C-alpha cells in the first residue's frame, strides 16, 4: 500500500533521532508556554497585534522597501537586490572578489540556507565557515539543518562527539561543555583569519534602517568585530515599520523561539564604521533576497510572509515531532515549511505539494504563532491547489463518489444501510484502501448505519434508548 512520503520517512526514522526531535521540540514548547503565560496577562493579544503589524508590512512592501533602501543608503550601506538565490549568491561572490577576499565567517541565517551560499562559495574557491555551533556541526557533518532555530535538534551528543573526533577536533568526548569549548577554540582563530563576515537580519526597521540581529552565542558579534566587510542577506519580508515595533517583536521572538525573555545578544546595526560609530566593519552590504517571495505575496497564502522564523510551530507540531525536519525535504520544515516550501517552488509546486498534507490540521501551530498566521487555513488552500493542478496524492481517498452520495439523501440512506456489509466481510476483501489503512492500525467500530433514524421514528415521547452499540465482533457473532 502506498502512503505519503513524509509518513514513510517517519516510519523509517531511527528511534534515537525521533526521541531527540520529540524531546527537543516538546521542551521548547513547554518552556515557551510557561514563560509567555507567566509574564503576560494576555499573550494572545500580543500575537494578534504583532500579526497585524507584519501583515501591514507584507501588504505594503512596495512602500517599505524603497523607504528602507533610502535609509540604509543614508546610513552608508550598499544595498543590493537579488531576485533569485543564484543572484544573491553571485552578489556575495562579487563583493568578495572585488575586495580580494577569500575567507568568510558566517552567522546563522536561513536565507543563506535557501540559497545554499556556503556550498556555492566553496565551489568558487572561497572558504565559508559556519560559526553558529549547530550550523558548524551540520557543516562538518555534510548534513542539513532540521529545525530553523535548532539546526541539530535531530542529533544527540554521542553523534556529535563522534563527528568531532572524525574531523580532528579531539578524541571522543560527549560532554557538551567539552564539545562547545573545542568548537570555540577552533573557531576563534578562524574569525581572525576571515576577510568577510556574513549575517542575516531578524528585523530591519524602515524608520531608521537599523538591522537587528538576535543570537545566543555571540558568534555574529565576532563575525562583525573581526572582519572589515559585513554582508547581510535579508529576505524582503523582514521589515518592521518603526524601531518602536521592535519592543513587541523582540519580546515575542525570544519567548516563542527559545523561551527566553531576551536572547543573550541583541545587536542593532546602523551601518558601517563612521565618525560617530568608530567600531565595526568599514564596509557594509545588505542584499535583499526575493527568491520566490513575491510569488508568495501574489498568492492567497501571503500571510505566511509574516513569519519571523521562531520555530514555535515546529516545536508544537505533533507531525514534526514524529517525522523530524528532514522529512520535509526543504530548508523550512514543520507547519511553516509545509506552507512556505511548496510556494517557494514556483512552477515546481507539484514536487512539494505533499507537504501541506502532512498535518492533522490540529491548529496548534496557529495557536502558538507569534504573528498569528492561520497556518491550517493556508495548508488547506494548498491542498485544494494541488487537487486543482491534478497532483497525485497517495493514500488520500478520492472524494467524487462520496460527494455524490452525500448530496443525494436517498442514496445516502441506502448506503447507511448497505454499509452494514463491513460488519460481516473481512475488510481486506473490500476494494477500499482507506478502510484497510484504517484497520492496519485501529479497529473499526460496528457499523450502525441508520439505527439513529430508526430510533427517532419508533420511540414514543421521551422513550429511553436501546442498549449501547455492540462491538464489531459481537455484531458478527449475533449474525
Amino acid at each position, binding site marked *: 500500500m502506498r*502512503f*505519503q512520503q513524509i*509518513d*514513510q520517512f*517517519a*516510519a523509517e526514522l531511527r528511534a534515537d533521532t525521533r526521541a531527540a526531535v520529540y524531546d527537543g521540540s*516538546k521542551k521548547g514548547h513547554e518552556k515557551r508556554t510557561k514563560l509567555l503565560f507567566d509574564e503576560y496577562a494576555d499573550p494572545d493579544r500580543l500575537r494578534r497585534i504583532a500579526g497585524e503589524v507584519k501583515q501591514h508590512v507584507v501588504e505594503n512592501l512596495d512602500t517599505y522597501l524603497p523607504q528602507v533602501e533610502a535609509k540604509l543608503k543614508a546610513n552608508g550601506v550598499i544595498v543590493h537586490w537579488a531576485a533569485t538565490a543564484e543572484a544573491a549568491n553571485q552578489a556575495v561572490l562579487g563583493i568578495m572578489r572585488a575586495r580580494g577576499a577569500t575567507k568568510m565567517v558566517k552567522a546563522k541565517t536561513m536565507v543563506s540556507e535557501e540559497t545554499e551560499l556556503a556550498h556555492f562559495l566553496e565551489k568558487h574557491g572561497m572558504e565559508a565557515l559556519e560559526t553558529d555551533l549547530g550550523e558548524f556541526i551540520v557543516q562538518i557533518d555534510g548534513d542539513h539543518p532540521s529545525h530553523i532555530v535548532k539546526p541539530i535538534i535531530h542529533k544527540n551528543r554521542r553523534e556529535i562527539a563522534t563527528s568531532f573526533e572524525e574531523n580532528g577536533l579531539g578524541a571522543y568526548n560527549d560532554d557538551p561543555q567539552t564539545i562547545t569549548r573545542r568548537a570555540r577554540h577552533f573557531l576563534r582563530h578562524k574569525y581572525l583569519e576571515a576577510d568577510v563576515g556574513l549575517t542575516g537580519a531578524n528585523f530591519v526597521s524602515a524608520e531608521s534602517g537599523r538591522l537587528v540581529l538576535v543570537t545566543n552565542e555571540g558568534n555574529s558579534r565576532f563575525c562583525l568585530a573581526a572582519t572589515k566587510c559585513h554582508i547581510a542577506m535579508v529576505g524582503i519580508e523582514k521589515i518592521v515599520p518603526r524601531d518602536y515595533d521592535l519592543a513587541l517583536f523582540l519580546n515575542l521572538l525570544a519567548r516563542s523561539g527559545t523561551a527566553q525573555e531576551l536572547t543573550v545578544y541583541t545587536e542593532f546595526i546602523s551601518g558601517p564604521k563612521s565618525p560617530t560609530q568608530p567600531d565595526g566593519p568599514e564596509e557594509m552590504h545588505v542584499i535583499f533576497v526575493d527568491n520566490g517571495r513575491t510569488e508568495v505575496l501574489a498568492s492567497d497564502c501571503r500571510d505566511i510572509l509574516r513569519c519571523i522564523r521562531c520555530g514555535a510551530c515546529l516545536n508544537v507540531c*505533533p*507531525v514534526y515531532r*514524529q517525522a523530524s525536519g528532514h522529512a520535509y525535504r526543504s530548508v523550512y520544515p514543520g507547519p511553516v515549511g509545509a506552507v512556505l516550501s511548496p510556494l517557494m517552488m514556483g512552477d515546481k509546486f507539484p514536487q512539494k505539494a505533499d507537504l*501541506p*498534507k*502532512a*498535518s*492533522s*490540521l*490540529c*491548529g*496548534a501551530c*496557529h*495557536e502558538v504563532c507569534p504573528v498569528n498566521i492561520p497556518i491550517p487555513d493556508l495548508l*488547506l488552500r494548498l*491542498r*485544494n491547489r494541488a*487537487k486543482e493542478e491534478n497532483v497525485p*496524492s*497517495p*493514500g*488520500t*481517498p478520492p*472524494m*467524487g463518489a462520496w*460527494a455524490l452520495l*452525500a*448530496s*443525494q*439523501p436517498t442514496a*445516502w440512506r441506502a448506503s*447507511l444501510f448497505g*454499509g452494514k456489509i463491513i460488519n460481516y466481510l473481512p475488510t481486506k476483501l473490500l476494494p477500499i484502501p*482507506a478502510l484497510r*489503512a*484504517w484497520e*492496519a*492500525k*485501529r*479497529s*473499526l*467500530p460496528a*457499523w450502525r*448505519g*441508520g439505527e*439513529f*433514524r430508526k430510533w*427517532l421514528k419508533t420511540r414514543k415521547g*421521551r422513550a*429511553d*434508548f436501546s442498549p*449501547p*452499540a455492540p462491538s464489531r465482533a459481537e455484531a458478527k457473532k449475533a449474525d
Partner: protein
Amino acid sequence: MLNTERKPITGKRVQFMATCLCDAFYDDVAAATVQVLEYLGVEVVFPEGQTCCGQPAFNGGDWTASRKVVRHTVKTFAGEEPVVVPSGSCAAMMFHGTVLEFENEADLGEVEALGRRTWELGDFLVNGLGVKTWPGRFEATVAFHRSCHSRGTNSSSAASTLLGSVAGLKIVEFGEGEQCCGFGGTFSVSFPNISASMGALKLDHIRAAKPDVLVSGDMSCMMHLGGLAKEEGKPIKTLHLAQVLRDALKNGKLI
C-alpha cells in the same frame, strides 16, 4: 480568526445535525443529544435529508466535491432555528471551513448564514441556553479530551463547566493536553504511521491519569483513540459528552 459570535437564543426549537459518524456508527451519541436537549425543553427537529457537513473532502483538498455537499447541507438546514451538532469539528466546518472554500463563490452569504446559527452541543447548552450546572449523577473519574477543532471556540470551556458540575464526576488532567489525537480525517489513512504514533502518545498520557472513562465532544477523536486502544489489546472506555450528560440524568432518575 474563528468567528464564534452567535445570535442570542430566543426560541426553544433547534435543528439537529447528527453528523455522518453518528449516522453510521454512533447512534447512541445522536440519541443522547436529542435526550439532553429534550430534557431542557428544547424541541428537536431532525431534517431527514441530512448527510455530512462536507469536511472530509474539504480537508482532503477536494473543495469542488466539498462545496457540492455543503450546498446540499445549506438546503437541508434551511430556516432560522439554531442548528446543534454534537461535534466541535463539524461545527467548525460549518462556521469556518465553509467560509474558506466559498470565499469566491456567489452563495457565500447563505453558507455564512448557516455557519452563524450552527452550534457545537456543549457551546449551545452553556452559552446558548445559559445552562451552567448539570443535574443528576455520574460516578466516574473522567479524562476530557479537548478536540482540536474546538481550539479558539467556547466548546472546551463549556464542556468543562458542564462536566465539572455533575455530582460524582471527577475530572483528571493528563499530560500534553494541547496535543492532537492523530485522527485528522483523511490524514489518518494517508499518514497512518504518524497518525497512529500520535494516538499512542495521547493514550499513554491518558492511561497515566487512570480515568474510568475518556470523554470528548467529538466522536472522530474517540473513534481513533478507542480503535487504537482496542487494536493494542488494551481497550479504553470512551463516551461522548452528550452520553455523560444523558446518563447523569438517567442515574438521577430525571429522565
